[in-house]
């Protein structure tokens, strides 16, 4: 349940929900739990391009900074401005609290992303559970 089956995942703990050539991106429940209380997000502007596996922004908790990596390449079509004033929403529900929406420019890149089951396995291996 922690990781929706319809999403795809990165090893850097982002999720992407792809519908056609549109993608919605956030961070995983594991990522928000590891970070702790999130107090700050730095996101690109609408119209910016993001590149697969490259940093597109950052998320900060009280004690840590973490880069955000784009799961696939694309152009930013929407930014969740609500997170500027209420970044803690990511802690409350990481699965539905999106950060950016993009139009995919190379949809085939998504083939190399992890499924929910693979991501869950990856996290459990990373944490030794």
């Amino acid at each position, binding site marked *: 349940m922690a990781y929706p089956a319809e999403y795809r995942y990165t090893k850097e703990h982002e999720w992407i929900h792809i519908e056609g050539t549109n993608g919605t991106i956030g961070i995983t429940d594991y990522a928000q739990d590891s970070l702790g*209380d999130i*107090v*700050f997000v*730095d996101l690109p502007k609408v119209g910016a391009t993001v590149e697969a596996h490259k940093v597109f922004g950052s998320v*900060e*908790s*009280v004690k840590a900074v973490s880069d955000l990596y784009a799961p696939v390449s694309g152009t930013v079509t929407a930014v969740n401005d609500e997170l500027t004033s209420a970044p803690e929403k990511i802690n409350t529900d990481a699965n539905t609290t999106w950060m950016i929406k993009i139009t995919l420019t190379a949809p085939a890149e998504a083939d190399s992303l992890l499924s929910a089951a693979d991501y869950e396995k990856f996290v459990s291996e*990373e944490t030794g*559970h």
Partner: protein
Amino acid sequence: MTDAAAPITLRRTALNATHRALKAKMVDFGGWDMPVEYSGLIAEHMAVRTGVGLFDVSHMGDIQFRGPGSLAAVNRLCMNDASKLAVGQAHYSAMLYPNGTFVDDVVVHKLSENDYLLVINAGTREKDVQWVRATVGTMPSIHINDYSDMYTQLAIQGPRAKDVLAKLTDTDLSTIKNYWFTWGKVCGLYNVMIARTGYTGEDGFEIYIPSDEATSARVWNEILAAGAEFGILPCGLGARNTLRLESAMALYGHEISDEINVYEANLGRYAKMDKGDFVGRDALEAVTAVGGPKRKLVGLEMVERGIGRDGYTVCAPGGGAIGVIASGSPAPFLKKNIALAFVPIEYAAVDAEVAVEIRGQQVKAKVVPTPFYKKPKV
């Protein structure tokens, strides 16, 4: 991640299993496997500011000096003047190297005539003990003991700390002034040292109990039970750090170190130059003789959106690097992004404008008075 077995090289306090049972996130802190947070850093921080929180600080070290030579040894070793302490009184002090930089900061407690206890930092314990023995170990009429592993040290901190502890002791806590201590019965244990000290900028107490696991866990749990009506939370090192930062208290390796002298760290008020010689005194006098330090620790508040963190570069506005952040973080109670930073004297005045380099961008900040947070007068 949270409850995997820690590598055996990490040291554990007697409450390690208790922290893990509470599902604390554990981190390596100076070689110790310690809880960084339980329910959440911000909630824990706010509990201490508005109610009460409980910290395991057993990783701190304890060095005791006994014998007729103990005052002379403490005063040679530490920059504050221990001759001013009454029995039952404590003060902030520091051990210095001959060049005026820090071996460690310490709290000196006068237990009785010829009997002093120095509470030292966890990450510097071995270094401190070696330094103490090398520096004053051969002075006459003194016996030095490292009692670090004999005590579980618990900090009960916050405006309701007194109400919680009062339920567990028959000692009249109102008679213990800030930075004084006494001994009393706590949770059925006799002769527990009860000190009105802490590292949060809040009222509170630190108690020293035997370090066996059963006693430590029992007292920990009794404090949490007694504090339930006041909303007590177990608190980790994460909140401990943000609380001390809001109160502008130094952390070894950040605001003080073997590369930072007393005046740079803004702790000159604790260096008693007129008490007689002590290790580091000549170097401090030399700093004063050339007109004071070239750089100084100041409080910064971020003006633009961004969080300046430990190690980030401080710049002149629109210009080059001038300094470095010692500790920087969001301040959960103040709801601002704050930092303690070393800057040249010409940038150290309140309201001076500076910038912090955050991921390649200059973000505006200004110098503000410290402490950032002061507890309300009661």
